[in-house]
């Protein structure tokens, strides 16, 4: 009855695997991931319906995309990189705490007990895994669809060389790997908003609003160097690996900028959640 400390008591509550299963049981999470996985197919269908023929001099991206499997995959990564992945990130991270609160499951998790910081950490890691898996899946599906539709050729860099197969795979992998750099801020802000509200859609919406305003301000040239502070300023650095020549500078800047937002917003989220009274 007095339950002496045994091995299981030292094992941490809420294993990562369990949290992954929990997240993947949510249709919102599945839908967000499915959008990314379905994108290559949607683009392929759009090309089929649009009936765009590879023209002899066309250098527009859509025409380029249909020149080979590798180019198609690169095109899909290129177009997904703007708002789409940001919205998916916002949904995944905005759902973390707010989603549990809206389902009334948060209090039961905390009463297990799962220490609050651990809950936040495990959830953030699980969401990151889901996001990375979806991004990787999108690249793989894009390559498959591209190779089946346009043959196994390597990618043609816009205004650049045609790459061979190995180089193409390396470029696509690097692009997929680097895309999350530009999403760190959205993940951190989504987590913070998720802690602040019990409405997952409000949290995701907040991130999207900031993304839109930030992108808009980024187009105002008069802001000069101050644009470097905008969270979305380096959002397109992942495109470096789809271009020739590659420039690692913006990639590094994107990583630094994303980390800075994580370092600022992450602790605020953790502090707020740690001292928060859980109601509802």
């Amino acid at each position: 009855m007095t339950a002496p400390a045994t091995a299981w008591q030292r094992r941490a509550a809420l294993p990562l695997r369990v949290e992954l299963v929990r997240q993947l049981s949510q249709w919102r999470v599945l839908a967000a991931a499915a959008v990314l996985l379905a994108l290559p197919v949607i683009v392929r269908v759009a090309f089929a319906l649009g009936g765009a023929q590879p023209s002899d001099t066309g250098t527009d991206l859509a025409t380029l995309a249909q020149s080979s499997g590798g180019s198609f995959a690169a095109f899909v990564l290129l177009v997904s990189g703007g708002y789409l992945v940001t919205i998916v990130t916002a949904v995944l991270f905005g759902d973390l705490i707010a989603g549990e609160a809206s389902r009334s499951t948060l209090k039961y998790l905390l009463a297990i007990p799962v220490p609050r910081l651990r809950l936040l950490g495990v959830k953030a890691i699980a969401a990151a895994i889901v996001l990375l898996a979806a991004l990787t899946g999108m690249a793989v599906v894009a390559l498959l669809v591209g190779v089946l539709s346009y043959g196994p050729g390597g990618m043609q860099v816009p205004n650049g060389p045609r790459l061979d197969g190995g180089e193409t795979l390396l470029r696509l992998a690097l692009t997929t790997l680097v895309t999350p750099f530009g999403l760190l801020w959205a993940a951190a802000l989504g987590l913070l908003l998720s802690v602040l509200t019990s409405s997952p859609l409000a949290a995701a919406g907040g991130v999207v609003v900031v993304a839109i305003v930030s992108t808009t301000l980024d187009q105002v040239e008069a802001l000069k160097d101050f644009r470097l502070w905008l969270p979305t300023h380096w959002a397109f650095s992942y495109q470096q690996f789809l271009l020739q020549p590659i420039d690692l500078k913006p990639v590094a800047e994107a990583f630094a900028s994303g980390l800075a937002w994580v370092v600022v917003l992450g602790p605020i989220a953790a502090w707020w959640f740690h001292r928060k009274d859980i109601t509802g």
Partner: protein
Amino acid sequence: MARRRSRTGVLRVVAVVAAILVALTAMIAAPAAAGTAAASPPRSRFVEVPDVPGGTGTIRIDTDLYLPARTPAPAVLLAHGFGQHKRSLAPEAERLQAEGYVVLAYSARGFGRSTGRIGLDSLDGEVPDARALVDVLARTPQVERQSGDPVVGVVGGSYGGALALMLGATDRRIDAVVAGITWNDLAQALDPVSYGWIRGDGQPQRLFKEAWAARLFGSGARDSADPCSRFTARLCALYERLVAGGSLTDADLALLRNSSPSSVLDDMTAPTLLLQGLQDSLFSLGQADANRRQLRRAGVTVQVDWFDGGHDGDGVAGTERATDEFLATTLQQQAYPGQRFRYAVPAAATSFAEQHTLSRYPGTRGRVRPARVPLEGAEQTVVNPPGGQPASVTSLPGISADSDVGRAASELLAPRNPAGQAARFVSAPLGAAVVLAGSSFVRVRVTPVTRTAQDVVLFGQLTARTGSASRALPGGVAPIRVRVPADGATVNVVLPSTTWRFAQGDRVVLTLRTTDGQFAGSTTPAAFRISAASPILLPRITTAATAASVSAPGRAVTDRILVLLAIVLVLLLAAVVAGLVRRGRARRAEATGARPGDDGEPAPPLRVQGVRKRFRSGFVAVDDVSFTVERGQVVGLLGENGAGKTTTMRMILGLTRPDSGAIEAFGAPVAPGSPVLRRIGCFVEGPGFLPHLSGRANLRLFWAATGRPRRDAHLEEVLAIADLGPAIRRRVGGYSQGMRQRLAIAQAMLGLPDLLVLDEPTNGLDPPQIVALRGVLRRYAEGGRSVVVSSHLLGEVERTCTHLVVLSHGRVVAAGGVGEVVGSAEQLMLTVNDPTGAVAVLRRLPVDAVELTVEDTVRVRPGEVRTGAVLAALLDAGVEVAELRREQRLEDAFLDLVGAQEPAP
């Protein structure tokens, strides 16, 4: 309540989003103001310079000075193209101004409002002028200085490009040179040496590029009655002699050398960017190649760009980024720019435009073994018409063969080119794609038909044939002039440098014509037989591994990343350490509490002491609440809605922190995340499940989340309590309120915790289920476990619980065993024959209250007096008791308790 909370949550989101937006907008104000101030208009001014070096006469150079927002800044001297003036440079000047440079744009002598005569970038005219303008920049206070010298770059295209090179080579103060589509040797550009030669031949011959020369002199002579008035007299004479069919004398060559970078480039010290266009029949890639060779000999860093443009394209358009990057490195960062070679391959019928970057310039002969493509075609006879007319048209000066207009023109003109004047040699379809980059080479056998030694003039051109479509390669034609002996000779031909992607299946076509509209050809009629004497060699450059960055991230960024990563690491470590410390402390406390105390009794499952909770709204939900739950007890928390029951339970579970007071479970203090919470199962404020999973999957997953072994869950026992039947396999989203309620209670019992905390568990259950739940809870506590149940239904609590805590307005108003609390509410209803007498008798007893109700019934609240004593007293007094009813009026008692605590309004 729930709605209000979620609304404040949304408000919070709005607040954070607004805060971020305000922060972003706050950054705008200052730079926006600065931004408008930055685009200041140029200051115009004439600079007096000597007409000739050392002379006394002066001319006036018209200049515009653009100042950037922030000074001091590096300066850029901008030189214009032929026929332009300083205002033509305004867009580029404003771009560079915005990039943060002091820009000095000027009209060269003889152009715009500048006086003097055009000397074609003469070392005795335009170049000293430019040095005088560097003097002006050196005196301008806004120009940045390095050890006394101004930081100055010079940028120019075409006419300005040669000026830039020659100024850079003759003025040590220049720190960077950007020269676009320009010449190395003006004589070679306007009157090129033959691209073909016969081994052992002597002096190479030249061919006059008449069409371009005429255009240049024409645009220089604009707005003047005298066709040559703006040029120096010597240049005028030279031009007139060439047009009349003469050849260049040594004096002419010396004059043109005086206007050529080739004469001074060996002295260059500034890093140089050479931008040369593919679409350029005036200044070929070969000119940049020659410049580059000299610059490397001088030991300076050279970057070479072959871009898809030039005099037949859009000039230097498209090279802005390359220029800006080069200037940023050399002038702003004052760093060493690496060697770099970049070349474009224009779009072809079956391929897209490409761009390749290499760290090394491979030259125009390629870097790897050239592709050897055999040419087919029998010996052909060509004739040169008398007077060289009509001439073939292979391109139109100033119009790119790659543009729509150029292609349309060449498609219209090509079939009309005189047939007898061209020999054509076509390759077999290529077995594999070839990317040509550089100068192709071929040998042809030329034999005069008349069998007498003859001057042969030919123009060689390469064409790509895809299916039935032919596309001339950019770069123009190779003019050839050789003296062929009577029995013929093998002529070596180097074709102009260019780039092209031949797709698999394309054919390479070599065309040799006797006339070309761009050149002054031979006027003597002639006929010769031509045959291909070798395969054509197409130079190639394999691109090295391309996944290399053009620039490494600077120290500033990498340092920033390292610092940020360190911060992340420190934060993570701090969180982990804090967590470990807290858990260790909590575990020690739990271990202490689990040990029997002084009285030999282990600590009670729950002890709440003086707990108070005030919400931010100011509402005191719980005030000084204390009670204890012992083993085996089923404790009811009773109170009206809002009495503080749920808030108390949330504090017991560590979901909410009390403002003051202490809560201990099994001797260990309870705080958010305390390990002791493991021993408490709970159901608070409604069920919460993952709606897309079945009831069973929900419970399994919930147990998995505890991280404890599956066998400890007692899942089947608990599911039996929930009694959901086959519904347990359906998704929870479809459950009724009662089903969810039962599943939630089952979830609370998972692992059979030592303390069960249930908030209003009977809500939504039907009467049989309520009865069943009562039994379950009693039995649960019998084994020494404890249960805390809250309810606002008194009858419910009375039947389920062993002990009661009555809450009202956040305070405990009664506590104890059900008997104790309920006992005070016990009353006897006596039907007697003498009600008045009975009342009188009973008033003498120490009962709590006596009153006459209806006719013959007396109500007694006996308090401490036993029922037997009441009856005995009545019987002693001779009062007959017809009927005795014992009633427990808990509702009344409860209302009494609550009423007593009603706060003053």
